[in-house]
């Protein structure tokens, strides 16, 4: 479920918990792995990714209903 935290890369700094606009990480405890409590409220603003000091520790997975509609490129 979005967002996804990589346990091995996360430094437990809490930045994502502090800044998330929708408080998706509500209920997370200081110095512990962030808890993704309200994944359905994520707006894919990317703020947690931008404020994360550990590259790749948090990433977003877009839910299927939000996938873009696009035209495939013509095959050669």
């Amino acid at each position, binding site marked *: 479920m979005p967002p996804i935290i990589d346990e091995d890369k996360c430094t437990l700094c809490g930045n994502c918990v*502090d*800044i*998330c*606009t*929708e*408080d998706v990480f*509500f*209920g997370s405890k200081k110095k512990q792995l962030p808890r993704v*409590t*309200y994944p*359905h*409220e*994520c*707006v*894919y*603003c*990317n*703020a947690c*990714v*931008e*404020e994360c000091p550990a590259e790749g520790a948090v990433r*977003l997975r*877009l*839910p299927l*209903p*939000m*996938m*873009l*509609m*696009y*035209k*495939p*490129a013509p095959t050669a």
Partner: protein
Amino acid sequence: MTHIIMAGEQMEADVLVIGGGPAGLMAAIHAAESGAKVTLIDKANTVRSGSGATGNDHFRAYIPAFHGPDMEPVVKEVAKSQAGWTRPQSFVRTWMKTSFDIVKMWDDWGIPMKHEGRWEFSGHTFPGKPFTTLKYSGQSQKPILTKEAKKRGVKIVNRVTAFDLITDHGISGAIGVHGREDKIITFSAKAVVLCTGGCVRLYPGPTPGWMFNRADSPHTTGDGRAMAYRAGADLLNMEIPMRWAGPKYFAKCGKATWVGVLRDPRDKPVGPFVTKPDRIYGDPISDSYKGLFEDYMKTGKGPVYMDCRGISNEDYDYMMHYMKHEGLHGILHHFDEEGIDLRENPIEFMTYEMTTRGGIHYNEKGETSMPGLYAAGDEYFGGISAAATFGWIAGGKAAGFAFGRDAPSKNAGKESSEALKNLVREMRNRKDGPSWQEINVALNQVMSDYIGPTRSDTLVEAGTAHLLRIKEKARKDLVAKNQHELIHCLEVLNLLDVAEVIFAAIKERKETREKYIRVDHPYKNPAFDEKVLVCRKGPEGPLTEWKAIND
């Protein structure tokens, strides 16, 4: 079973700013610079909250070095734009006159307002018409504005949602609810600036059941409008609908950042303005025809695509750079994951759901109809430049007002804070009843079915009756299992108040004019020429009044 008790806390300031988007931060900065003691409260964290959280890239501005000494053509063009068409020209003139100062300030603080060292205008522009949107790199605007506010001594209180204004002996502050602790905070202040942003989550979004897939920030839920209304201030143009358009199904504003041609499925351009991707214009057809995408779908001619094929390498790099600054990272990331390449894949666009065009009636000084109460930004939609400019203006005026009055009495707000404590305590302790989601969905369906695109007296009548039933149940029965749910409960209570006002305003405006359509009154009523519809709280619900446009 634990019984939840709400703790209380008191804070004092000269100026209280509610909402820390660009409008609120600019208001706080100016008020603090003027010498006022300023507190700013935000529902989230000002570093990345609201609609400008991860950036914007178009800033309406008059830049003398670019436009020349005559500002009037720019004023006229902005007055016709989506951001200005419901505003008096005098308002737009003040906005444009001040905009350059704001641009210079932002540039000095480290928000890049120039493109490769020069002023660049592009997007939202019709060929042959004056340019009004300055291209800028706003990705870091929120962290930077937060830093500037702190530098000037602004006290920022994050994760507190204001719910009601204190109105004992004039505007005297506000009461807020903490989003992570069971705590109510009474903020006493000599002047208040409302900057809570837009009014999202009134109507169903693009994805059924997916409440937070929204073009604008879904935690901006008309709280300022509802607070102002409950305090007795005027709301304006609430009946006029507003709709955005953008990529489908990933809802996000920022249409003008896309450099392409809007085409039908057979590759025919749907508008007359551009035939190949051009970064200067984008495709302005969807600026003047917002319902385009929906109409093409309804008539079976759709879908309509944003087609960037044929874009030059230089314009492609430009577009990708600005998409990052426009806060479209989520979309960029999705391109990577799906292997979508804008140079090859046209992206379908859609018309997003409605909201209200209207909001708090604030004038070019940021004053509302109540002394001591100021408002700015998307409390009445104007985009990022209006937010920054009128935030700045309102903050200065609020400080001036605060200097001229004594601090509110120690007892101010006691009663309203007790009332809110009771309401909140009940929601937190109730075991059974509707969740905020139930109420929000019930509201969404009554909005779209009874005052959606089809509006008439009989629909308004039936819808109002149902809305009032939902509202009564919400106040009596809502359940909040934790503080996070509690904030959502307060949001839906606000949305219900705003909805009631919209129903009342639609009932009153029995005519069809520009973007406002009444199927049972399909004509313009000249009696309403040069007039606007104002709503305020009466003893039995919303009252409406027609006012001359410049009042």
